[in-house]
């Protein structure tokens, strides 16, 4: 098994927020782990969105809902005309916000908690990878 690309792989995995990667082949098995799960960061954490150019105050970034797998991103169900969770809509934990299509299979991108959809972060019909940011969710407690 070639181990030439571990550094590159690690960078990609970190960029995508992947904390565990396992690859099995006929001659061996590669296991890369590390980094904290970004989803486990407190929702108020603002490292990612501090505007460094003008030192604007840190806006609460909300919660990034990410792609659980690779697939074609659908914000609207193939049988419907309206999005599953348009910006501004209130959603409850577990509700399906978007879909990833793999052939005939539709895998949900679900709300990790109650909240309001702040923004759709990708494009309907785009091929997205594991960990791609799909939706920004404002948690319920921050709305009032």
């Amino acid at each position, binding site marked *: 098994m070639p181990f030439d690309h571990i550094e590159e792989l690690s960078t990609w995995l970190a960029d995508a927020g992947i904390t565990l990667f396992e690859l099995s082949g006929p001659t061996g098995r590669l296991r890369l782990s590390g980094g904290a799960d970004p989803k486990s960061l407190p929702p108020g954490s603002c490292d990612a969105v501090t505007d460094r150019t003008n030192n604007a105050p840190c806006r609460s970034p909300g919660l990034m809902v990410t792609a659980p797998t690779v697939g074609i991103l659908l914000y609207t169900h193939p049988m419907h005309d309206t999005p599953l969770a348009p910006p501004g809509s209130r959603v409850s934990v577990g509700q399906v916000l978007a879909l990833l299509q793999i052939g005939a299979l539709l895998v*949900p991108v679900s709300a990790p908690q109650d909240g309001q959809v702040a923004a759709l972060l990708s494009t309907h019909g785009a091929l997205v990878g594991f960990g791609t940011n799909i939706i920004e969710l404002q948690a319920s407690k921050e709305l009032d």
Partner: protein
Amino acid sequence: MIEIMSTGALATVQDIGRRGALKWGVGVSGAMDGLALSAGNILLGNSEQAAAVEVQIFPFEARFLEDCAFAVTGADCNARLDGVPLPPWWVQAGKAGQVLRLGFPGRGAWPASRAYLCLAGGVDVPVVLGSRSTQLRGAFGGLEGRALRSGDRLATGADREATSSGFGLCPPAVAMPMRLDGLPAIRVLTAAEYGGYTQEATERFWREPWKITPQSDRYGFRLEGTPLIPAAPIELRSHGIVPGVIQVPPGGQPIVQMRDAQPSGGYPKIATVIEADLWRLGQAPIGSRIRFVESSWDEAVAALDANERWLAEARRLVDLYRAKRGRH
């Protein structure tokens, strides 16, 4: 186990059908949309033979008396579990006490009229003549040979896999659309008496839309259009017929035999809906219009293969997804 809380008429237990019983004069019954039923069973990891509830009149409500995964396929009927909307063609875990409500089917991308509530393990009713399908005319099969009523309880088979939930399938109506001039297209083979109709009649048969009249049900769809008149009166002895056969009674308004069709009839047959498209017609709502498209024998067989390929691919992807999730 689930309890039916409220249902309109004619919700029945159906599986893929009672094959091989025509020789005793027993019709095939089974789901009007066999692809939707099979897809629901695939989502749940059920056997192909598992039975489900076919819902034709909405709204429909059922309560889970125990934890049980379920799938809703067929018509997009705004399914809600304790008020939380579920996408169409979706499998989900139901918890004891939760209420599933199927609302009126939407007229969205795919206007359809029948929904399937599939349960992990399948609806457990006795197998009669090789099938669990309700045979309403003979009053056997399904639950006591009758349509479901409020208060009925349906048990599920023990043979169920670990609860899986929260994913779906893109329906074949989206993946394999068939339309002509904006209307659903149904492929048919010409039948024995086709040549007995005037050229004008056969041209109209292909060229004009046919409306599904309110006198359409699981037994047959009565269509409305310009009457089909034979060149000379056609008289036949009763002979065997199967679902899909398009008969033309003397009035000239065709009847398509559907799943609960009796196994014999004497009207002339102008054409036969190919088996692969019976689900498309079975979902056409009353009042909607369809078009007939001529198919060859080879095309009809290829269409059946295409359905099988869709199901095989769905089964492969669902099995992969369930296996992957099973590890976590």
